[in-house]
């Protein structure tokens, strides 16, 4: 028990961000902040990831890619919206092509505010996401115990339109 908290692997997707928040996420990996001391690895592969960190305001082009990445991640999984753009669209929210936030496409679990979000707050957000990951695993296990047959091919992911 509690292994998700000890080894959360992160996938970062830039959904049309200005690169400000992306630089801050990369800064978390540097010797100064060193995400790996918590066991967090930036994987770059959705099939290995537990946490999806989304930056940027999400537009029509990046919407489908974001959905695909989320669907390819094995359960349990959480989404962290990093930066004001991923929360609400920030100054871009009135643009004709912008959806305005990652929660328009995915069920977001943790919001990390800031323009751009600071590395300290990103690390805090990711560690809060780990707690939610544990909760989701516990729920999943409970659901599996109550109905073992229906679980065989069930994927709790995003429902396709």
């Amino acid at each position: 028990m509690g292994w998700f908290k000890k080894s959360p692997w992160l996938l970062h997707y830039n959904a049309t961000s200005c690169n400000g928040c992306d630089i801050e996420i990369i800064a978390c990996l540097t010797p100064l902040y060193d995400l790996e001391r918590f066991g967090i690895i930036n994987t770059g592969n959705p099939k290995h990831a537990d946490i999806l960190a989304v930056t940027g305001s999400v537009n029509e082009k990046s919407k489908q890619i974001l959905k695909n990445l989320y669907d390819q991640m094995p359960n349990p999984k959480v989404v962290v919206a990093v930066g004001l753009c991923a929360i609400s669209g920030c100054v871009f929210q009135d643009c004709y092509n912008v959806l305005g936030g990652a929660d328009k496409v995915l069920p977001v679990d943790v919001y990390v505010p800031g323009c751009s979000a600071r590395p300290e707050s990103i690390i805090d957000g990711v560690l809060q996401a780990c707690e939610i990951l544990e909760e989701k695993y516990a729920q999943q296990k409970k659901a599996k115990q109550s109905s073992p047959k229906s679980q065989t091919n069930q994927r709790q992911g995003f429902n396709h339109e």
Partner: protein
Amino acid sequence: MNSISEIIQSWSIIERMLAFFLLAPIAGGVLAGIDRKLSARLQGRYGPPVRQPFFDVLKLFQKERILVNKFQNFPIVLFFLFTVFSGALFFSGASILLAIFSLALAGTFFILGGFSVSSPYSHLGAERELIQMMSYEPMVILVAVGMYQVTGSFTVADIVQHQASLILYLPGVFAGFVYILTIKFRKSPFDLSMSHHAHQELVRGITTEFSGPALGLIEITHWYENVLLLGMVYLFFAFNPWLAIVASLGTYLFEIIIDMNYARFKWQLTFWSSWLFTAVAGVSNIIVLCFLK
């Protein structure tokens, strides 16, 4: 130390195999943890705890099982079984040749696993793994040949009992073996097919499509493999067990330092440099031994 070796000698083959099966993943996992901690310290980072590889694997076994096709995990299970089999053969004192060939078969199943899915990253990783295998395999065979020339036996039990020091007869073979160990440990500059470091151009190469329990199994197999390879390093210094253990660990630390200091090579350079090193160090050593005997 003598008492320990006497106890080991009093065990039957089955008991030795069981001991390897149970102890090797623990030793391999701790080695992997030390690797990550030391790598982080060399880069000026704090680094994860030494137990981190165990956390990772336990987490991976809790993740959902996603299969791309029916046959995806089948080669991975065989990869695991044959690696454990070759390690068990080696540590029970059976033929070193059989252990080496079984390990090569395990590697082949890993490549088949990479080819069994349709991801282009996985295919490219599998192709690179094939190239790596062609690079290191001649030298691994030469290790067995060199040991046979000195001790007159392919059996690990006889090689360990040999009184003279193998390293004095086989310095070239040992140097060549350390060179290709970098490939086997999947360390930079030879981590072409998949890398343990977070980011690389092939996503995750040959393991791209493996997730959850299958990925955990690949990781555990890698630990078994590392312990087996360090066991082969041990044989070179087997005349003095303490020296042999220090030499095995020293080799592992040396590989970590190489890993930290080199950028990834292209496959061409990997291929011809390892064959050149095999020819210059390994083959010439064996030719010299032919004239001495």
